[in-house]
Structures are given as C-alpha cells and as structure tokens.
C-alpha cells in the first residue's frame, strides 16, 4: 500500500521537476574546444553569432585534441560531441580511426573567403597557433632559447606539462633538439629533466598551466600565444618569447564527428567560426588568434603577419611523431612521478 503513495509522490515529483528541467533548444550543436583561451574566445564570439543568425545554441566541452580523439573512441558509436577542433597530429589519428564525417566545403557560405589549401575532404582550418616560451618579466630575465628552460634561474620557476597536448609535445621536441635530440628522439629531454627534476617548480595537467602561472606557482612555461594574451588581459605579468631557433606553428582545424546527429548545425557552427566578423573579432584583443580569412588583415600585434610566414616557423611531421606519442605520454607521466 505504501507503494501507491510512493509511486504517486514520485510521479508528482517527476512531473513538477519536468517543468524545471533545462529545455534543450530545438537547434543545438555540441563542439569540443580547447579549455581556456579557446573556450572563452568561442563563447564570446562564435556562440552569439550562431544564436543570432540560426537560433542554434552552442554547447562546448573543454577537451584537448588528444582527449577528443580518445573520448570519441570510448563513446562507441554515440559521439559525445558534433565537432572536433584538432591540431595536425590528432587530426591524422582521427582520420586513420575513421572519426570524421566527410567534409564538403561547398556547404560553407564563407568558403570563398578561405585562403587556398585551408579546407579538404575532412575539415577546414580555423586558425594558426604559435607556440613558444612564456615568462614573468617581473620575476625572471628574458630567456632566449629552449635550453634556458632547464638552466638557472629559469628552471626553479619552470612549469612543466607532458606530451598530452600539441603545444606540450612540440615544445618538448624542441627542447630535445636543443640537447641533441630530434623529432623522433626525445630521449635527451628525459635525461636532462632527470637531472633537474628536484628544482622544477610545478608539473601539471596541460589545462592547469595558466592557473599555476597566474598563482605565481611557476613563472616560466611553454604555451601558445593565445594563452599569453588572455592571461595578460587578466592583469598577469606575462610575456611571450620566440626562442632563437624559432617559435613553433601549426594549423588548427575543425571537423564533424562521425555519426553526429546534428550535421547541418555543425556546418553552420563551422561556417560561423570562419566568417569574416568572427575571425576579425578573434584576431583582436585579448585573443589575437591568427585568422584564416582573406577578409581579415593580420594586424601588427599578431605573432605572424601572414599565413605565408608559416614557413619561417618551426613545423613538424606528425606522421612520424604520432606512432611514438602514446609511449612518450606514458613515459613522461611515470618519470615525473615522485
């Protein structure tokens, strides 16, 4: 008998809650996005455009590229998001694993504004990233090269993160090169790190690095220019340095997840992200994204003046790096553990 009461109360309760239930808008799209600066930038500039022009709500999940590929693999056919945002390495992995829908750039209204070679059958570029060293000029002298990271006085203020992200991987590769390693040989990094491990200020998850820097837990780290400008905008003492061997650059791309239930909305999201007004807004303070739109002039504060300059930056061959990377990630986590 008490069951009837229970059930009735439960139904009533459920009905009452149904009203309070957050309604999912008729149109929505879920995009994976890098945590931090990218998430903030897209929330401020892409989401409102998508809502205004198409009535589509943009949901974002903060995940780094490698994590997106892993999360998709773990979801077993029910994609956890509709769009990827990836760097070259994970992009190749995702293509190999069949994680993308075929991409048709003709469905983008803004296709004509894309520079040549910025779209293919898998996706479209949304910006270029530049990676180098960031340091606190009030606490440390200006470093000049990657090897400075492991020298005094910088090493005791160094914030370290592993191979789990593209910026972490390329930085550690460049660090390895400074000590005689190469794109496929990062052994010197492990050897050199072992010597100074006790001095290093912090070892953190990639997403934690800006927070650690802001709290003064570390005063030098490797990161992309967007993170530096966003932190600076928040009043943090931080400066970007291109190491003397050159800053690293790579193109970041957007893709539609295989099996996405919202392909149309995904195209609209991507279209909005590469549109002239959004790209222009993203290329200005505080984000300074390097735009991929012919209608947006690269302004003086950007780390590169035109996409042609990419050739002056250090780039990497991800087909060679990818097979080794899982091993590096694992090894880094182990060797850093106390």
């Amino acid at each position, binding site marked *: 008998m008490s069951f009837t009461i229970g059930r009735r109360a439960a139904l009533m309760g459920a009905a009452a809650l149904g009203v309070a239930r957050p309604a999912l808008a008729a149109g929505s799209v879920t995009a994976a996005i890098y945590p931090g600066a990218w998430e903030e930038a897209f929330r401020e500039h892409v989401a409102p455009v998508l809502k205004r022009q198409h009535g589509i709500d943009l949901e974002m999940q903060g995940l780094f590229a490698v994590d997106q590929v892993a999360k998709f693999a773990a979801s077993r056919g029910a994609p956890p998001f509709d769009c990827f945002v990836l760097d070259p390495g994970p992009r190749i992995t995702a293509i190999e694993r069949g994680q993308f829908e075929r991409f048709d750039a003709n469905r983008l209204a803004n296709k004509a504004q894309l520079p040549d070679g910025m779209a293919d059958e898998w996706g479209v570029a949304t910006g270029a990233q530049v990676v180098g060293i960031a340091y606190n000029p009030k606490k440390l002298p200006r470093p000049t090269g990657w090897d400075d990271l492991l020298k005094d006085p910088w090493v005791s203020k160094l914030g370290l993160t592993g191979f789990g992200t593209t910026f972490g991987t390329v930085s550690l590769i460049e660090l390895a090169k400074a000590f005689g390693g190469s794109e496929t040989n990062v052994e010197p990094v492990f050897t050199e790190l072992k010597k100074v491990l006790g001095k290093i200020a912090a070892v953190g998850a990639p997403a934690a690095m800006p927070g650690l820097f802001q709290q003064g837990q570390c005063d030098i780290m490797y990161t992309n220019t967007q993170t530096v400008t966003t932190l600076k905008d928040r009043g943090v003492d931080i400066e970007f340095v291109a190491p003397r061997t050159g800053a690293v650059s790579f193109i970041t791309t957007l893709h539609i997840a295989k099996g996405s239930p919202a392909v149309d909305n995904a195209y609209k999201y991507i279209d909005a992200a590469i549109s002239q007004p959004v790209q222009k807004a993203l290329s200005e303070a505080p984000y300074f994204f390097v735009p991929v739109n012919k209608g947006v002039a690269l302004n003086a504060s950007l780390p590169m003046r035109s996409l042609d300059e990419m050739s002056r930056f250090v780039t990497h061959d991800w087909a060679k790096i990818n097979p080794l990377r899982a091993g590096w990630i694992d090894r880094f986590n*182990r060797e850093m*553990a106390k």
Partner: protein
Amino acid sequence: MNGSGVSGFARIGPALPLGLAYLAFFVAPLFMLLAVSFFADDRLTVVGLDNWRKFLFDAFHWKVVADTLLLGLKAVFATVLLGLPLALVWRGASPFWQRVLLFVAVMPLLTSVVVRTFAWIVILGREGVVNQLVLGLGLSPEPLRLLQTEFGLVVSLTQIEMPLLLLPLLSVMARFDPNLLDASASLGASPWRTLFRVVVPLVAPGLAAGALLVFASATTAFISQSVIGGGRLVYLPALVWQQAMINANWPFAAVVAIVLLVSVSAVIAVIAYAGRVAGGHAHGTAA
C-alpha cells in the same frame, strides 16, 4: 514488530524497489567492470589477462597502490590528531557551545568538495595566505612550496574529510559516562593516562567508524589529489582517469579501478575489525 501475521514478503517488500535499483545500477555495473578488465584490447574484442599482467608485473603500479593507501592513512592520522582534541573540547563545553561546535564541524560537509579544494589553492599557493604570513613574519626568506606537495595535499584533505570523522566520534563521545573520567582522575591518573587508557578505548568504535569514512573518501578524492597534488603525485584515481578518459583504454582502466576497490576495501575491513575489537574490549572491561 513481528506479530499480526504479516507474511515474510510483506516485511521485506518495501526494500524491493531499492533492491532492484541496486541490482540494475550498482551490482550489474560492478560486474561489467570486472568483465571489461578481462579483455586484452581497448576495442573489447579479444579476451585475455594482458591488462592484469600489465598492471601486476610493473613495480610503478605497485608504488602507486602503496602511495594511495598511505595517503589515506596519513589523512586518517591527521584528522584523528586534530579531530579527537576537538571532540574532547566539545565534550566539556556547555550545551550552547556544543551546538555551535557541532554546526562548525558539519558545515564543511555541506560546502562542496570542489569549493573546499579551491579554497586550499588560495591558501597554499606560492603567493597564498600561508606564504604571506610566513614571509611577513620573516619565518622563511623564500616562499614555502606547499601546493604540489603531499604535505599540502594531506592538510587540505584533513579539512575536507574531518567532518566525516567528527560525526561518529561525537555521537559515541556524547554517550559515554562522565563518571568514568572522574573515577579515573580520582584514582590519581593524569589526564594523559585517562585519555589513552579510558577515553580512547571507549570512543574506539566511533573513531574507527569515522576513520574508515575518511580513508574511503581521501583515497578516491580525485579532484583534490590532482589540483592540490599536481602532476608529480600519482595516485590510483588519476591512473583510472588517465586510462579511461585520456588513453581510452577501458580494460586497463577497469583493472586499476578494481585494484582501487579491492585495496581500499581491504584496509577498510581492517579498520572496521580493529574498531570492533577495541570497542568490544573496552566495553567488556568497562561493564
């Protein structure tokens, strides 16, 4: 209770809905976890013990198990070291102050764990509250390193978990006979002797009940461990998280999760047993 000819079914009937929910959402998932751990590949196609072998034959993993259990024990030690004196003070306080102290003890339990973890970043940071005090008082020329150390982690866990210890401890403490303490004192025992010979054995069951909750909670506190502890302190929950969500290696993640489950349960069983023995002993002699 058992009169009036109620059938056995009617008596356990009210437990059925919850029982079924437990089977569907608790027992079945745990069996699934066990099943997944016996696959050799992350696409779950080949059955094999590979992932168990990978875990068991690697000293690094054993160190992580040991570190995790030790972290739990350190948290238990720190909460007892601070919680027991607080409980003693509570016992001697007036009814009004007892209520206030109880409220203070419970309050953190109802503020989100994430909030409490966040507070400790602000307190333990290089430019945080503690370091400003230390530098301001000239106790150290350099800021102390507190975040990303196990010491800092244990301190924050002490606050985060202390209410779990205090609640059962206070309930036992409220029950025991104050005459026992007077008797002990009048027999000339020093307060220290009374504490260790009379009070501690008497409150042992409450202490054990609280200790096992603290242990269980501290060993699984992933967010505190990763945010306060940082990348150099690796515990089982971080390993579970990395393998499941970053490497997408479910079988290996399942193995680690089962090891966490079994090792934590084993320690909990020992604490519970110790509590029962101490409690039985104390009540036996006190009666």
